[in-house]
């Protein structure tokens, strides 16, 4: 347990000193502010850029527009997050900084678990920053009540956890940054393709990222997501176990 806490602490320190935490936090903060502003300003911009005589009357922006922006931008932010942290396993493997600690008796599973804990805490923190800032700005700029707001946010968060753990598995399997990126992107691609089949939609973790807006507009109810959430959690556990297994066999 002491080794685990020490390693997790080291991960946090590393993310601060390599400016990764700064980048992620500022980008999430910026997007958090931009979401409601874009939603509010977009109809005005559209009508002011329209050429003379062309009449288009965009509807008055509502609370839901701000959250549509939030979920649309969150997938971009997730990609950025994965790119920034893609080297978390492979950098240590290529630099050989883990050898000393592993030969002194640090269990290999501690390495993976502490990295996972650290990266998920950073993801949660930055997601929370973005969510709270969007919430405050939306309350002020586009006031209104929406159903299932915290639940929808949790769905997107869980999808992020799935992608991040996939990235970790990629690092443990291939030992290179490209492996992590490829696996995370490829996995998202597979989920997207599986979404073509309507029968699979209910079980697909991809629903967690695309279905958030329909929760807010009451097209779907939270119980539609339960199966997908269970599948996602099962996937995450499976991914963690397999990354520990593959890291155990890895030559360092």
């Amino acid at each position, binding site marked *: 347990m002491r080794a685990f806490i020490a390693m997790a602490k080291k991960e946090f320190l590393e993310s601060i000193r*390599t*400016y*990764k935490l*700064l*980048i992620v936090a*500022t*980008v999430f*903060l*910026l997007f958090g*502010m*931009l979401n409601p*502003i874009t939603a*509010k*300003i977009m109809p*005005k*911009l559209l009508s*002011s850029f329209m050429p003379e005589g062309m009449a288009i009357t965009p509807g008055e922006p509502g609370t839901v527009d701000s959250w549509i922006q939030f979920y649309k931008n969150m997938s971009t932010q997730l990609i*950025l997050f994965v*790119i*920034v942290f893609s080297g978390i396993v492979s950098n240590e493997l290529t630099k050989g900084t883990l050898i000393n600690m592993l030969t002194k008796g640090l269990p290999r599973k501690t390495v993976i678990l502490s990295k996972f804990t650290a990266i998920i805490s950073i993801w949660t923190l930055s997601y929370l920053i973005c969510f709270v800032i969007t919430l405050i*700005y939306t309350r002020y*700029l586009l006031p209104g009540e929406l159903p299932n707001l915290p639940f929808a946010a949790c769905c997107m968060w869980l999808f992020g956890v799935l992608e991040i753990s996939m990235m970790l598995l990629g690092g443990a399997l291939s030992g290179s940054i490209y492996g992590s990126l490829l696996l995370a992107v490829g996995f998202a691609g597979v989920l997207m393709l599986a979404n073509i089949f309507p029968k699979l939609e209910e079980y697909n973790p991809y629903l967690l990222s695309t279905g958030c807006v329909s929760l807010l507009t009451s097209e779907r109810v939270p119980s539609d997501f339960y199966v997908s959430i269970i599948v996602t959690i099962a996937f995450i556990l499976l991914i963690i176990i397999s990354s520990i297994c593959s890291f155990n066999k890895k030559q360092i």
Partner: protein
Amino acid sequence: MDVLVEFLPFLIPLIIIEWILAITALIHVLRHPHYKFGNKSFWIVVVLFVQIIGPIVYFIFGRGEE
């Protein structure tokens, strides 16, 4: 122009954050003159004139190893 004035209170924090990011990156560029590619003047221009994206690109791709 009216739209701009109306949203000025919301744009100011955005601009402050942009500049915090740019200045942090600028200090790093000046203090650590080793980059994965490019040279000092190139990174100063990128960091200062490509807002938001410039500093991020510098910290992810351009920052050299110690």
